[in-house]
């Protein structure tokens, strides 16, 4: 009898907790986005959609994800392959590769600010090479593409590690026999990577891509640290509406947009990288 009740007792705290602090707030966000002064209204949504910053915030956020995620995927795959091949110094190099995993996006923003700000190291380097006499203001509003580039670099620098860790553990699950068989039949390392590693890695690729793409839609502190509000992104606008403009309903409407594109991205990856039933390791 006890064995029947015990698992539910053990799950109870977590379930209650997630219902109260996860399910309820999401319902509440949807409600808030469609209400004004206690009644149903489309006003928060229309206010958001017609605000001049909305289009560019959405555009920059999507562009950022579209640029950052593929580069990170390629880098994470190469880093993971390197790590799996390593025999000497594996632990030290793994530690170094995974350092950014522990860093916040704010910390990453500040790190790259040290490089890109006007008296920063990039200007110093260019000056030392004789390229410029006067430091360039990289992060000003007239250089929005440089701000974008700095954000891209900071995001790649910070968040590739998490993908790499997921892919390394995924590669560790692929049976060695597959590679041995591939080698016997004369497959080159590249062919083995394409024909064995990538297909077998599908579940890990899926979670890595979902996790990373959603985080890219939530980009916030990196942008704030590097560009202030010059480069508008969805999360930054949400923050803005909540604080500067003191309008929770419009902030919730923004949140709903982020949620919406997150769900679309998740469904996309689940569909494209779906694992056939019974084909898991």
């Amino acid at each position, binding site marked *: 009898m*006890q064995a029947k009740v*015990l698992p*539910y007792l*053990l*799950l109870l*705290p*977590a379930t209650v907790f*997630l219902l109260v*602090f*996860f399910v309820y*707030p999401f319902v*509440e*966000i949807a409600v*808030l986005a469609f209400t004004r002064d206690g009644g149903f209204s489309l006003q928060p949504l229309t206010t958001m959609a017609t605000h001049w910053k909305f289009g560019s915030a959405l555009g920059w956020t999507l562009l950022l994800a579209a640029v950052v995620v593929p580069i990170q995927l390629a880098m994470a795959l190469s880093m993971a392959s*390197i790590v799996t091949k390593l025999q000497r110094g594996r632990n030290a190099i793994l*530690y170094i*590769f995974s*350092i950014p*995993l*522990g860093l*916040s*996006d*704010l*910390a990453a923003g*500040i*790190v790259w*600010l*040290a490089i890109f*700000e*006007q*008296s*920063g*190291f990039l200007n*110093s380097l260019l*000056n*030392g090479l004789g390229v410029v006499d006067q*430091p360039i203001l990289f992060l000003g509003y007239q250089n929005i593409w440089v701000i974008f580039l700095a954000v891209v670099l900071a995001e790649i*620098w910070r968040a590739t590690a998490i993908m790499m860790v997921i892919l*390394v*553990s*995924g590669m*560790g*699950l692929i049976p060695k026999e597959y590679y041995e068989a591939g080698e016997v039949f004369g497959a080159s390392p590249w062919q083995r990577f394409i024909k064995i590693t990538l297909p077998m890695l599908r*579940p890990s690729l899926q*979670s890595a891509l979902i*996790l990373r793409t*959603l985080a890219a839609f*939530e980009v*916030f*502190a990196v942008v*704030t*640290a590097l560009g*202030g509000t010059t480069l508008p992104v969805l999360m930054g606008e*949400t*923050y803005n509406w909540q604080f500067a403009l003191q309008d*929770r309903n419009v902030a919730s409407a923004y*949140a709903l947009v*982020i*949620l919406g594109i997150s*769900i679309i991205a998740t469904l996309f990856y689940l569909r494209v990288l779906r694992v056939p039933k019974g084909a898991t390791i």
Partner: protein
Amino acid sequence: MSAAKTNDVPSTVQSARRAGKFLFWACVLLICAWVLVPIYLLMVNALSSPSQVSGFPKTGLPGFDFSSLQFFAGFSGVGRALWNSVLVAVLTMVLSIGIGAPAGYALSRFEFPGKEVFRMLVVMTRAFPLPLLALPLAVMFIRTGLDDTAIGLALVHTVLAIPFAVLITFSLFSGIPLELEEAAWTLGCNRWQAFQKVVLPLVLPGIAASAVFAFTISWNEVFAAAVLTIENRTLPAFLIQNLNVSPLHLKFAGGAALVVPALIFIFAVRKYLFAMWGIANR
């Protein structure tokens, strides 16, 4: 590949292999530099005087002047923000393990109806932009008096950390053979005693690692912290609020204060990182 074997191959292949090996290690070094150099540059700024920080051009060597860090430490609100960060992170750690570990144990040891539903709920929490939870919770917290408190913020951070706590502890418990527990039962232990005396000592290091992971999640979180706190800000929330108005040397000293603990956390859990993720994937 043994040394004797490589000697037998013709020299062209050998030199090609050597070139490949050289290229391989060059890549490794390049990536290491890509990770480490920006951190080094931040540290250079943190260890230089305010005038050196805003000076131009820079040499790339630290001035070993601690006045930036001193200014940061003496800046009003920093000490409190640091304390709040630690407090919230410790609460998150305790809550997420306290709530997540029993669930992880249940998932690894029992088959029961509803298991898949629960797993879906947990996996779903990873597929949603969680910091946004802070928006509606702000109202709920004001109603319950949890607004602007460490425990209120820790509750939100726990939602972020719980899926990891559940999946990691699930993998830890699954790694311990059920036979060990059964042996303890036949020797007269009840379920709780067997858990306490046999399972717990074996999983404790892994639990500690996942606790550190929860700590890091909370330590790094910015958005919810900035939305939910006003007086009791954590360090990231404090920094993001003051970013526009604070002088450069304050930003860099603050950045260093965020980075250094993170380096230590990752070092502490490095052994478990991959085992944790290997299972958390599925």
